């Protein structure tokens, strides 16, 4: 659904999304990287169970919550990717221990 702009030219990095190796670019946020890599959603709603995807991309809507390096409910659009980062999509509500 999303294509990178031709002038976007960050260095290639690799992160893990739900255990799967994914190529991203330096300078991406986690949310942008997920969208660019074709992930249709990053979590399911704790209320209805419906899939949710990054939306506002500026820290306001909290739709892009993901688990980053073991910490749940991080706002993916506010976290820059890092080589080797462990990203996990979320199902329902955050668990207190992660």
């Amino acid at each position, binding site marked *: 659904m999303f294509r990178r702009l031709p002038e976007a030219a960050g260095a290639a990095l690799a992160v893990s999304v739900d255990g799967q190796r994914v190529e991203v670019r330096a300078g991406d946020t986690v949310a942008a990287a997920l969208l660019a890599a074709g992930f249709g959603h990053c979590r399911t709603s*704790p209320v209805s169970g419906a899939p949710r995807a990054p939306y506002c991309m500026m820290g306001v809507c909290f739709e892009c919550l993901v688990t980053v390096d073991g910490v*749940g409910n991080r706002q993916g659009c506010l976290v820059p990717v890092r080589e080797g980062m462990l990203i996990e999509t979320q199902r*329902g*509500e955050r*668990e*207190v*221990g992660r």
Partner: protein
Amino acid sequence: MSVLAASQEHDIAVVGGGLVGAAVAYGLARAGQRVALLDGGDAEVRASRANFALVWVQSKGLGLPQYAHWTVRSSDAWAGFAAQLKEETGLDVAFERPGGFQLALSQAELETRAAQVNRLHNQAAELPYRTEILDRAEIESMLPGLGPDVVGGSFCPIDGHCNSLRLYRALHMAARLHGVRYLPSHRAERIACERGAFRLATTAGDVRAGKVVLAAGNANLHLAPMVGLEAPMRPERGQIMVTERVAPFLRYPVATVRQTDEGTVMIGDSKEEGTSPDGLTMPVNAVMASRAMRMFPVLGRLNLVRMWAGVRVMTADGFPVYDQSETCPGAFVVCCHSGVTLAANHALTLAPMIAAGRLDADLLGPFSARRFHVPKAA
């Protein structure tokens, strides 16, 4: 129809639309009274916006055993009260009574707590509830994830909690369904007793009623003397911190930490002198957060989403004041700190007495403000 003309039809005016006033107004309307519920504006200092939603028994009654009985009566009535509200409004106020804890983070705290519980049990042969002191191992089996600093605590099997925001909404909705006329932005400023009826001068004009109930929290201090009553108050500031929502992990409410039915964790563990709800006292917040994390280390990983301060309604001795005026019969005062815990009593027991024009002396006599008239020793 003007407010003045309409207000002539009120049997009774309740001053204060918080949890206490709304519960009383609801109970009065159910008892057949035509009720006006006078409330302030949106920016008023309201205790009801900063409560912790506990329906709490342990510790209640030290120094006044009748308060323990009054509290247990309400705790016992709460399940039926919540069911009644749900039937009438469709709102589930999420009442649960799994028992509750107070946790000690040092041996000294535990000894202080054990001494309190001991005094409570010694003071009245027939204290209507028990609070047990438990050691760390016993608590750990009930509260997984307990921090290593918790040395023990107290547990009372009839403690519980609810969703107090929904309670507030349910009481207002139920009151209106029973015909209560809600008058927001009508802050009562003066009350006069005229020929057996009351005229209340409010910020939005006069309201008249045959009887009046003062349920205005700390403002009762100034309002009560206008109708021959008294309500000695000493407001107390408290702060609340709330985390993001997480999957259920805390099965029992703790006096200072509880997980709501919606998944947020509330932390409320402060008492400060002062009447301003404005602003936060960061060193106090830091202690609150630190103590909560020592009780449940997993909380340290959660994001806080809100924190705010409020002012507790507190009488001079901490016990409720329920009185009818001797010089202006028909004027009642209702003051208490525990507006959530006592909501069932206020709606189901107190309001029918007010509707009938007489407070039961056996049940409520101990809560008269006449108790403050003990001559001081020379």
